[in-house]
């Protein structure tokens, strides 16, 4: 990892009166409404909220896949006007290209920049080493386990040295043990490649374990109802999960989310509404 160049600058996010509409005609609704928030460069922010509250929609707007209908959304004072390698996105289910080897998948971003084959493969190998997949470079994505696929996905996004790392419940489909290991791995990688992270989850433990700061979102229209700053020391390990301070915050989050129970909303995705023509983008948990 010695030759790894640091990210250009972790990005600063600013949202001002941000609203995003989804759906068409009479079906249209505001998935998030008048959000005002800032995320400091290098901050690890979790957006916590129940299913369908619009947290993935906000992430989609940050990635540039969804266009806000009102308000401003900027990264380093530049308005987001489409997807960019500066803002890397990790979905709940991997989006590795099935027809490319793991190595070529990770090198994809560099290929798009026009980096030569030898150089991009060298860098991709380095990234794979970082996520612990060095021995799987030649495999097809379908030959990896779910956790490995997400690790490859993270490597593929980080090779572009993004200002923002956007994660949409990236470990939501993994089993509990793998999820815990992936969370520690993510924090470990983040300690080395310090970028701004926006991590969407509905899992309170996960948010508390990972984040510097938690923005709690209420469902439809999505609004932030709490802004929690966590100062658990880093590096964090599993013992944190049973500490009194952790339990205190967890109780607080549970209370915030509890009075929304009983309202089941359809899932939203960073690409908008789940399309009826295609299989649902994400499996309900």
């Amino acid at each position, binding site marked *: 990892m010695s030759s790894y160049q640091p990210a250009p600058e972790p990005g600063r996010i600013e949202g001002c009166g941000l609203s995003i509409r989804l759906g068409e005609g009479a079906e249209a609704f505001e998935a998030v409404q008048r959000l005002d928030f800032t995320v400091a460069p290098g901050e690890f922010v979790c957006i916590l909220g129940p299913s369908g509250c619009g947290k993935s929609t906000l992430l989609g707007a940050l*990635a*540039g*896949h969804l266009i806000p209908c009102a308000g401003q959304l900027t990264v380093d004072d530049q308005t987001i006007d*489409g*997807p*960019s*390698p500066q*803002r*890397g*996105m990790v*979905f709940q*289910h991997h*989006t590795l*290209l*099935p*027809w490319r080897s793991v190595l070529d998948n990770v090198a*994809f*971003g560099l290929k*798009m*920049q026009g980096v030569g084959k030898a150089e991009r493969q060298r860098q991709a190998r380095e990234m794979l080493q970082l996520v612990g997949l060095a021995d799987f470079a030649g495999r*097809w994505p*379908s*030959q990896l386990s779910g956790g490995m696929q997400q690790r490859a996905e993270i490597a*593929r*996004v980080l090779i*572009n040295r993004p200002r923002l790392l956007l994660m949409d419940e990236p470990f939501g489909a993994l089993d509990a043990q793998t999820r815990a290991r992936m969370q520690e791995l993510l924090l470990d990688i983040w300690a080395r490649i310090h970028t701004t992270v926006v991590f969407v989850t509905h899992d309170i433990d996960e948010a508390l374990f990972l984040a510097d700061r938690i923005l709690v979102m209420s469902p439809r229209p999505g609004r932030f109802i709490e802004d929690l700053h966590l100062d658990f020391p880093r590096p964090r390990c599993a013992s944190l999960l049973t500490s009194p301070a952790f339990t205190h915050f967890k109780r607080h989050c549970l209370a915030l989310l509890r009075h929304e129970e009983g309202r089941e909303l359809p899932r939203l995705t*960073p*690409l908008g509404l789940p*399309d009826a023509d*295609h299989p649902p*983008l994400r499996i309900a948990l």
Partner: protein
Amino acid sequence: MTRDLKRWPVRLASLLACLLFWHVAASARLDLGLFTFTYVPTPRAVLDAAWQLLTSSAVLAHLGSSLSRVFAGYAVAALLGVSLGLLIGRSKWAEDTLLPPLEVLRPIPAVAWIPLAILMFPSSELSMVFITFTGALFPILLNTVHGAEAVDPRLVASARSLGARRWAILGEVVLPGALPSIVTGLAIGMGTSWFCLVTAEMIAGQFGIGYYTWESYTLQNYPDIIVGMLLIGVLGMGSSALVKRLGALATPWYRTQRAG
């Protein structure tokens, strides 16, 4: 594998039984009322005729002209079918402008084009190539459209986030994503283009396997009819197998994905 080997003797025996029935029926000039074996040549006569054809110089002319017609028509159909299919599958505008006329033409069997094709093209050679092309175009086109439409939108979104632009998305995501479906279309198209070619040759040809088969009928060389039929079958099967094999080589990830 060993189970497969054990089943081969039965399969072989079944084939031999059919051959034996053919031999007996043709030798005895079996008449079943509804249809008759009176004019059906025996397997032995067919074998002799096949040998005669294969050792004559005419076989190259027949095979050569059939193969070159199929190749020309099929190549144009593959090129046009895949590129139009990708366009229609990925662009609403292309779908609205290109698909309606194609949908109108699609149900017309290629064989029904023969009279018009003879009128439209200056040479019968070109009209036969056109018939072959029409036969192969639609299976290739429709499978490509289907494949391009079914590409996971998340893959496209992800590729854009990684810096891929329009052409890179087409080449890196849409085309490979649609490829298994395109290969299916190409294999089906190969079969239909042979079918159409043979029919066209029977009507308009001067050389070619279809012409040879039809000519044998008019000249009453009955064993040659069956030689022609068998040749058509072998060539069609061989070229379809070739397309499938090449397709499997082009989509190596596909088998592991389905197995896993």
